[in-house]
């Protein structure tokens, strides 16, 4: 069968917006991978978004004690053994964020929701995706998004609109793996289908895209200019799938690596605390086999507090005052600290070939766009790891109370060797993090 239309022709002709910004080299970068194996261990990034913020009056260290010699608040005591490897930064925020129920939507983007007239929602690329464009080139998964479901339950988890923490080049949401079982299979289970059939399936998937594009083209001819701009979102999305398929094809004949300590399929009923723990384990395992170098995790809030014994919803908890709501809020903070400390333990225990640990080459950011209740200033921000060559072990209070959170994202990008001039509304890097 012969089809006269080529995908790329359509993409080229339909609109100037489709500039294929992250066009990847179509050739298999075997050479790159071979070279990389002998190099120093790869840089990695992990972003952990908690949705509804923290118990703000007790989560942050005392502002008068900054620098390396500060007292870790009681709520964060489980992290004490890692105190010299973590840093808490105060006074970071996004100037445009104004929605008191969105802890994750703009957390990694810093976008202005109302930047486009006549449109009630707008977002821009998230920092993890900027990182993934470079760090993710040579791994099977350009980036991995984990996003606990249950977000739609009463009051939600405080994450706000979105499908995960990640937003693509066009400011559109990226879907996440919603549970440990799906995550396990995606990262570690090999397709049982024979190679030839998988190749054929890819070919069919491409062909499907060609067909819908035929319809898009004929539709586009009859639409007004402004409607065509809207239809471009569809075309951009098709283009993204194509890039994904190309990558899949490259990796088709490469078997998925298993971690040194083999994992078993997780129990499907894990929720809340145990779910976070196993998701952390899966991330560690994925790093061990270098399945990906960029991770985001939109963490459960309702399920977490319920697994800790609370019967209220996370939204109800977030409006805490003295009493039960505050108790639940604090137990959530400590549970997160405990889980994060374990995660760091495991990263430290995983050794790279040169004797350094995964933790030495990884940068972790933990926090939310919401600090407490509906407050969007002083976003709770805790970073860890040696991946960006940060001077860890500090308590930083930025001199300006509205220091862009994007300055941290820019610092992480640059620290991890990604040469970018700016990110979001960044005004520079955070100098105190660099030696």
């Amino acid at each position, binding site marked *: 069968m012969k*089809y006269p239309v080529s995908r790329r022709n359509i993409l080229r002709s339909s609109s100037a917006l489709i500039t294929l910004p992250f066009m990847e080299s179509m050739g298999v970068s075997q050479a790159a991978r071979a070279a990389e194996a002998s190099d120093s261990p790869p840089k990695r990034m992990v972003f952990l978004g908690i949705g509804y913020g923290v118990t703000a009056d007790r989560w942050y260290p005392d502002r008068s004690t900054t620098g390396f010699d500060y007292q870790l608040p009681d709520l964060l005591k489980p992290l004490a053994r890692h105190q010299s490897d973590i840093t808490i930064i105060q006074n970071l925020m996004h*100037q445009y*964020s*104004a*929605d*008191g129920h969105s802890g994750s939507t703009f957390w990694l983007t810093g976008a202005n929701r*109302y930047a*486009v*007239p*006549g*449109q*009630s*929602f707008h977002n821009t690329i998230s920092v993890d995706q900027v990182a993934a464009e470079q760090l993710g080139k040579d791994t099977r998964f350009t980036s991995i998004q984990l996003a606990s479901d249950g977000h*739609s339950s*009463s*009051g939600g988890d405080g994450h*706000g*609109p979105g*499908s995960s923490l990640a937003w*693509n080049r066009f400011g*559109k949401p*990226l*879907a996440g793996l919603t549970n440990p079982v799906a995550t396990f299979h995606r990262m570690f289970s090999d397709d049982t289908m024979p190679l030839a059939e998988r190749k054929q399936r890819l070919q*069919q998937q491409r*062909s*499907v895209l*060609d*067909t*819908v594009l*035929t*319809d*898009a083209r*004929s*539709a586009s001819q*009859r*639409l*007004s*200019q*402004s*409607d065509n701009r*809207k*239809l471009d*979102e*569809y075309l951009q*999305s098709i283009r*993204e799938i194509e890039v994904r398929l190309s990558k899949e094809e490259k990796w088709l004949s490469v078997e998925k690596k298993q971690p040194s300590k083999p994992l078993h399929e997780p129990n499907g009923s894990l929720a809340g605390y145990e779910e976070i723990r196993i998701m952390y384990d899966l991330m560690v395992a994925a790093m061990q086999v270098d399945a990906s170098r960029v991770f985001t995790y939109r963490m459960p809030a309702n399920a977490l507090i319920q697994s800790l014994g609370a*019967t209220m*919803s996370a*939204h*109800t908890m977030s*409006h805490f*005052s003295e*009493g*039960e709501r505050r108790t639940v809020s604090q137990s959530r903070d400590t549970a997160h600290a405990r889980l994060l400390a374990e995660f760091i333990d495991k990263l430290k225990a995983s050794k790279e070939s040169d004797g350094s640990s995964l933790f030495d080459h990884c940068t972790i950011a933990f926090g939310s766009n919401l600090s407490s209740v*509906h*407050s*969007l*200033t002083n976003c709770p921000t805790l970073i860890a790891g040696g991946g960006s060559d940060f001077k860890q072990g500090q308590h930083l209070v930025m001199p*300006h*109370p509205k220091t862009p959170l994007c300055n941290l994202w820019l610092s992480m990008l640059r620290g991890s060797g990604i040469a970018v001039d700016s990110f979001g509304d960044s005004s520079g890097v955070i100098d105190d993090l660099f030696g």
Partner: protein
Amino acid sequence: MSLNLSWQSGRSRRGTAAVLLALIFIVSDAHSGESPQRATMPVQHRELFERHCFDCHDSATAEAMVDLEGLSLDVSRDIETAEKWAKVLNAINSGEMPPPDAQPLPDEHKKAFLKDLSEQMVLARRILSDTGGVITLRRLNRREYANTIEALLGVRPDVSNLPNDQASSGFDTQGASLFMSSDQIEQYLAAARNALELAFSPRATPDATTIRVEPEEEYQERYATAAAEMRDVRDRATAFLNQDAKPASEFGFLDEYQAKKQSKVEWLPRMDDYLNRPETKHGATLIMTIKQGGYTRIKLPVLRELQDGRYTIRVRAAAYPDARERLRYLEFTTTSEAGVQRLGWRKVNAPLSDPEVVEFPYVHRAGEKKQLVIHQRSHQDRADKNQNTIDMKANGIGTPPGLWVDWAELIGPEPDDRRDTVLRRWLPEKPESSSEKQYATSVLTRFARAAFRDKEPDAEYVDRLVGHYLEQRESSQQPFDAFLDPMSIVLSSPSFLYMLEDAPETKAEPLSGRELAVRLSYFLWSAPPDDKLMQLGITGALLNDTVLREQTERLLRDRRSDEFVRGFVHQWLHMDRLGMFQFDGVQFPTFDNAARELAGEEIFQTFRVVLDEGMPLDTLLKADFIVINDLLAGYYGVAGVEGHYFRKVAVPAGSPRGGLLGTAAVHAMGSDGQRSSPVERGAWVLRKLLHDPPPPAPPNVPMLSRLDGDVYSARELAQAHQEQPQCANCHQKIDPIGFGLENFDAVGLWRDREVLDKRGKFGARVRLADFEIDPSGQLPNGTVFQDYSELREAVALHSEDFARGFTEALIGYGLGRPYGFTDQELSDAMLAEAARHDTSVDAFVHALVQSEVFCAK
């Protein structure tokens, strides 16, 4: 006239003052219906800036890169300018500016400045969000997508992986905000394939069967075993405690402490009470247990993916004479992987001596695997368990049961030829004379045309679809399977997913009949046109005003218009707040899942009645009837309402009900799950009823921590907002309205005093204080009211403002774009037209549908 004004130009040229005065005039006219062109800060605030800000923020210094001297007065000039003003607003609101070492702003000036600026910001936001009348290409939103697939295939797709379009604010019909992503396209392909497989999977409807469940078979044994175990523990503990020789371990206990604790067997009387009831030998009494599985549940057989159809559940049951009101109901639920879903409630009135049979209809959808479960009414939290413990401490047994169930039956499925119809419609037998290719071409052309809402698919596109089919056939797929690929492609193509409307040659060219039919049916049904409407569209008959009116009426009368009632009203009134907080079931024992869900339903049903009976719109502000069913009547304490269906009931003398302000839902939405919030309620009334929206709450306002730990009435708490000028500016307008609603508690029940309590043991409430309620207050226009009934009267006088707000919302929902100033003429015309028809709701709908804007691209 140049509007590129700034403080600078105002400073140097006197002539500008006149221009500014003119602008102030325009702005101050904003609420009277004139179309304002700009949001502008009045010049008189310049002095404040000069005195307090320019030291650091003039053009020369511009500390922190903030140059207020060069900032345009025209707040709505562009997004950048508006953002700068927003920062000024936030900085002053949060007390960040002026800095502590600078001279503070005089309260009066600060207040006046913030009032003007926050109002201009609201105006600027609206001006800047104006689309100039452009209706952006619309993707089917999640509701519409599901309805459209169902209309085509007779099965409802699983849309849980598609984005919930209501999350991104405004209405979920607004094209500009309905985005698309690559994951979504893959989800569309998967969801379509799944739905097609279900719709086309060959299976015969099984004969209807009746399966009866006798609950005593499960519960007699379970509770008897539990009782025996408790006795055993008690006997062993007693034996151990009555001797000194042998250690606790020989009696099965860790130590004396454990033995003492377990010797109490607190829950044995609950089991004994159950087992001693003779009726539990041949039925089940619905009780609450702590360790024996919670509620007594009647479990019907699991219905599987292909057992779809209509079923009837029959339950033979009776009520105990002393049953508490809420325990007189059966709650029908389903459990599945997705969780528990409540279906509805039925009241049981019959005495034990003469049980009755209660019926409940159930539709099982293809592709779902669910178990029907029946139990007593439930709470969101573990309140029924806590209440049971509290009752046990008081009466030794636990909460007295309400109902007894003899048996439950599941009957069905009813014969249904819908699936055969769908099959025959899309997959007719291949005529012997035609080739595979001809056959596929005809099947796929027809399917694509229908899916594209009667738009002819492109020939090349159909060729490609046929190619997919033939490829599958070559790999030896059966015709049925071979159609799955191309058909799911159709259901993921732009012509299906988007409501395409041809670009006009000239501006405001009318829609074609077909396009108008599509727009109309998605407006009122959130679904594609049916055959009748489509035919009228294709022939162009629909372009005739009279035909269009008839069809609008027909669509509104059809049950499918429930999608409009629910979709529109839910978003218009911000009813998502009803689900945002959890209500403590011990604190609010009667506001359980049933009461909360039906309280929301009351709003829809009330709107439905007002719509169907052609009542004036302001019936929603004040009415002498309410629309409730038996369960809500029980909740409100209205006597004489039997049956689960909603109907009009006259408001009893002395009752505060009637109109939206009398509904439990509105008050529950104006609470945080614990206490009433005069602020939330006042703001809601201003936004939704008085069409005088206050500026959005500024983020980052610190909590009033000085009040922590002390006990204040809601009125006192709200008044604390007014201590600081930046808060007073809005709150003196918002809060007094809320004060008038203080006689409604957090769940909308009437109260004479405000009781403040906290959670104690087993969730029992411990009283902290109670307060006299002072329900007096005033509306922003100065109308003073002494109590709730005077407030309602005062609000009801604003029926014109209410109608304007309703009209703007209807335009936003119906046209699929945010209401803008360019729509002023349209809303004026709609209001005038509706006024000629006694402001009946359908008159607004007709006026919109008949407007040039609705009928043109």
